[in-house]
């Protein structure tokens, strides 16, 4: 069931099945993002998600409240964390009677939790929801090798001493090496960065353009912190009060000195550095959403409507498209369904997995050839005004704890739209785009209240 573009016409009747009503962003809370093996080295996913939830509870006075549903997830997940979000809720100040589910959609996890819960609210199934995500690259799960795992399972099944000895005898020294998680795609063996390096080179994105985008991300995020924008979006954790990756004093000169880390085989066309790629990051984010009735009944703010969302996937395995280019396909579909063009948006939040990812998308949407051949459009989607892009910084500066990025973006964009609406009296829109491993992407529209 797709949301009507004119959601204002939808019924506000709260009874389930009575039609589609609005879902609104009430606010958010996240902990500052830390670089891997930094401030949160000893914090687990559950610790960080609980802290982000407790901060949200404190901000909105939700102590002991039963929320309609909480959905969150992590990309790097220990097998013991099968009920990660439920465990975090049980450790939080929320009512233990709050139902919960875990969700996993790579880097789109956070955004998809918002959209899944928003849809339940729109359908009248729940009144309130908390969406979230968390990831720890520091406390990542390490698995035993397949060889050792097979031996251990066989040992477990063995009944006699003879059988046990036979099982153990199959063990080889190489089986003792653990498997650490990586960002390599299982079907190509290439890391995400190597994939993006190919796409970046294919679109002829220059090193300078990538460094400029990275610089803007740091400058915008630092300025947002300085003017207190994050005072009601971020709660300090483990002594960290701002995102640890933020370099307010970086410059094109400093970024220009870094050597390439991805696509080195491309020689002169190797442009992707540690400065214009996101680092491995630890962090958690949460977003409180609800029906209009819920927000009014609890005297809570309504920052933005959650209008609609769209997912897409691309065939990167056979080289038909770049790994992280799925949002390029999701966005035109979402715009068409909602009868909107780029001109109808005040802000664009395009997740900066790599500077190259953002710039490839901008180039694709401006390309007549791409829009005609790949998207089937008769003219290009158009250019995005760079002054509307990631205006409070994005993942290059803040860092990117995979599942936590969606919540970071939704809460900050909703606040930004609401502030603009309050100041100018208009109801602006924002477009969110998040790429994900496996050739996927989720995009969404928020509209100011």
């Amino acid at each position, binding site marked *: 069931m797709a949301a009507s573009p004119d959601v204002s016409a939808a019924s506000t009747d709260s009874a389930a099945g009575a039609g589609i009503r609005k879902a609104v962003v009430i606010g958010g809370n996240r902990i500052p993002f830390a670089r891997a093996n930094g401030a949160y080295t000893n914090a687990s996913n559950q610790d960080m998600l609980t802290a982000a939830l407790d901060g949200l509870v*404190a901000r909105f006075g939700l*102590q002991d409240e039963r929320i309609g549903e909480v959905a969150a997830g992590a990309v790097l997940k220990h097998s013991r964390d099968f009920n990660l979000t439920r465990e975090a809720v049980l450790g939080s100040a929320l009512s233990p009677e709050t139902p919960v589910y875990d969700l996993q959609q790579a880097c789109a996890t956070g955004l998809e939790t918002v959209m899944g819960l928003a849809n339940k609210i729109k359908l009248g199934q729940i009144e309130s929801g908390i969406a979230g995500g968390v990831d720890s690259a520091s406390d990542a799960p390490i698995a035993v090798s397949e060889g050792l795992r097979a031996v251990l399972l066989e040992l477990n099944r063995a009944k006699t001493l003879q059988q046990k000895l036979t099982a153990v005898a199959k063990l080889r020294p190489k089986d003792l090496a653990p498997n650490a998680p990586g960002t390599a795609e299982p079907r190509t063996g290439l890391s995400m960065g190597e994939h993006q390096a190919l796409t970046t080179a294919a679109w002829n994105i220059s090193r300078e353009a990538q460094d400029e985008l990275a610089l803007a991300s740091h400058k915008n995020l630092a300025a947002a912190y300085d003017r207190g924008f994050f*005072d009601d979006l971020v*709660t300090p954790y483990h002594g960290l009060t701002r995102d640890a990756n933020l370099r307010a004093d970086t410059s094109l000169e400093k970024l220009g000195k870094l050597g390439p880390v991805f696509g080195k085989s491309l020689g002169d066309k190797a442009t992707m550095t540690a400065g214009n790629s996101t680092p491995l990051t630890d962090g958690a984010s949460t977003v409180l959403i609800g029906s209009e009735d819920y927000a009014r009944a609890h005297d809570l703010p309504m920052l933005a409507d959650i209008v609609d969302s769209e997912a897409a996937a691309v065939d990167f395995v056979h080289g038909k498209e770049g790994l992280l280019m799925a949002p390029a396909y999701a966005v035109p579909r979402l715009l068409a369904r909602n009868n909107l063009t780029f001109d109808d948006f005040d802000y664009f939040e395009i997740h900066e997995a790599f500077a190259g990812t953002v710039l490839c998308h901008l180039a694709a949407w401006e390309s007549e050839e791409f829009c005609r051949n790949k998207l089937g459009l008769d003219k290009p989607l158009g250019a995005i005004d760079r002054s509307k892009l990631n205006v409070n910084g994005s993942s290059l500066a803040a860092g990117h704890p995979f599942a936590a990025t969606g919540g970071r973006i939704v809460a900050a964009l909703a606040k930004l739209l609401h502030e603009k609406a309050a100041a100018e009296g208009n109801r602006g829109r924002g477009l969110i785009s998040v790429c994900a491993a496996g050739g996927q992407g989720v995009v969404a529209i928020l509209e100011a209240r």
Partner: protein
Amino acid sequence: MTDSYLTLVNSGLSKNIAKKLGLPRPAILRRYHPGQPLVPGPVLLIGSSAGTEALATELLAWGLDVRRHAGPKDKLGAIIAVLDEVSDPEDLAEPMLAVGSSLRSLLPGGRVVTISRPASTADAPARAAARQGIEGALRSLAHELRGGATGNGILLDDAVDAQAPSALAALRFFLSGRSAYVDGQFVLVGSPQGELPADFDRPLAGQVAVVTGAARGIGAAIAKVLHRDGARVICVDVPAAGEQLVKVSNETGGTALQLDITGETAGQKILDHAHSRYGRLDIVVHNAGITRDKLLANMDEAKWNSVISVNLASQLRINEVLLASELFPQVPQVVSLASTSGIAGNRGQTNYAASKAGVIGMVAASAAAFAERGGTINAVAPGFIETEMTAKIPMATREIARRMLPSLQQGGLPLDVAETISFLVSDAAGGINGQTLRVCGQSLVGA
């Protein structure tokens, strides 16, 4: 932050050793718990004025065991001396000596409370002398009390009688465990304003309070006590203190508002938060404060200015916003944190003492404007309170400050400051305005 000496001299073998050696033996103070009796024993009421009789009726209505004369073996929970009609120094001898003859009967944690009128320049010299004399006598008497007993006084303006709501509220406060660390102090009831609560254990029921600097120490204790007493609490602190602020907010069922109170828009942000989330604002506690100690000869501009900005200028600015706001029918009851450093001064604290003495001046000068809009504004001046801040004072200095100087021979707890604030912001204290009340165990050292 714990006072291990206090524990030592109150338990087992070490208690006897301390006694034999004649070491100071601070008592474990009688502190308030909801539902506990107001006083630990019968109340001796001394006085012969019309006010005394009326007060006796009130005390009986509270369910107290009121005695007009003490038997030789009676153990007393409190002694109340009503001295509202003294007009000559010679009038003091009889009631004061009557108090004296019963002091040895006072139970541990007992209370002595005088009720009298403030001396003024309009009085005949003899009457002014008698009235002022009471203050000297009570303060000295308080120094003589042991076993955690305290002595405090209520001053009734000439237009206020002893059964005025705030006079009764002040009396209950001084009798109760809420005033455990208030000793040797006078509170002036300046008007018959105020309304007694339906439930004295939940005097702030239904009210909404803002506490600045709520993340830790005294601020966290204030948030907890206001919540215990029935208020919903908006916990304010700087964004950097957010992690602790979350804990306090979730413990008190309140909301966390991360805010730098020195910002130009801080007052408006507080008002907007209260208005949008709660639709009302009844109480504001200006607790946030910092120290940047240096001898004046070594003081720099940054240290001076930051202390004045946080401890004083921010409060002035927020008060202006409160007074000018149309969001609420009446302005809130405000309490501002002063310090005994602002009264007695403290070496190395010229900037801090300026800010805290400034607070005392500010509340006195703001009282009329707040009264006009239905509110009150008072200050509380803590002495040596056991906090993270005072734990950093060098050991020898700390021991002198907490042991030798206060009559109660110990530091106070953040809770003690919070209890006094909760009393002053209650509707019952509506007749108390522009005052500074010390919570110092009758000492002059603190921060």
